[in-house]
């Protein structure tokens, strides 16, 4: 396993900055293997940008790039996201 990998809660601040609600307890379903799980438990990698991967199958769930005042999110790897409001 990679030393560099973090959990989803490592980017809780960034996600809350973007979505305006706490996101690590949201439950995402992986578009690759179909496994559900809290965003706080996904595997986070820091490359040029941030990559969220499914802890079960390694599929890329989302990519996040933060510019100065713009944030790009590709979440095509997440089939559904369930958020408590």
């Amino acid at each position: 396993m990679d030393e560099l990998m973090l959990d989803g809660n490592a980017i809780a601040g960034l996600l809350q900055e973007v979505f305006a609600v706490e996101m690590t307890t949201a439950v995402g379903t992986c578009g690759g293997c179909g496994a559900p799980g809290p965003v706080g438990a996904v595997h986070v990698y820091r490359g040029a940008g941030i990559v969220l991967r499914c802890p079960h199958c390694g599929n890329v769930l989302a990519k996040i790039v933060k510019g100065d005042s713009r944030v790009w999110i590709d979440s095509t790897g997440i089939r559904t996201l369930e958020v408590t409001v």
Partner: protein
Amino acid sequence: MPPRAVKPVVSRGWRGRRAADVDPERLPPGQYVTSDFPVLSAGPTPHTSLELWDFSIVGELDEPRKWTWEEFRALPSEEITRDIHCVNKWSKLDTVWRGVSVDTLLEGIETSGGYVTQFSDGGYTTNLPLEDITAGKAWVVFAYGDEPLEPEHGGPARMLVPRHYFWKSAKWIRGLRLHSTDEPGFWETNGYHNYGDPWQEQRYQGD
């Protein structure tokens, strides 16, 4: 209401770990010099054995090419010293590598494609015009300093394309695909600039 900082507030006496005496001419805008070598990755470190490793050139060309590790290492290689610049604002000056020029790999190839996609173990891709990886602008490197390239830094081999932000130098490179259309890669499809010239500070789409 709690006091809110509208602009960043300067932290008294802090300047971070970056190098101090840097010739500003060496640094693209917005960059800082680091002495360590941060390890950045979009995914787990691949560990492809050299027995199974190969490097291919595929796509729109006369005939696909492929080299095993032995064949690749038998190609003429050179020592390359360059500055590298990461989009995350750190730069490393005078990094020394050893590798095979892309010109050597493309020698004799006939292609109608004007664009190249680098593809790697783990699925990472990044794109550039063909003219930006030829004529001495790019290498497939297998050593950093005197040492074989470590897996966490992209070993056994990675791309070195120093004229662009370093996300355009793919780690764990397995080949190049030639196309006649531009195919934005892993980061280019999500916010990072399609061309990524550090001297024009082309970090994000729209820059």
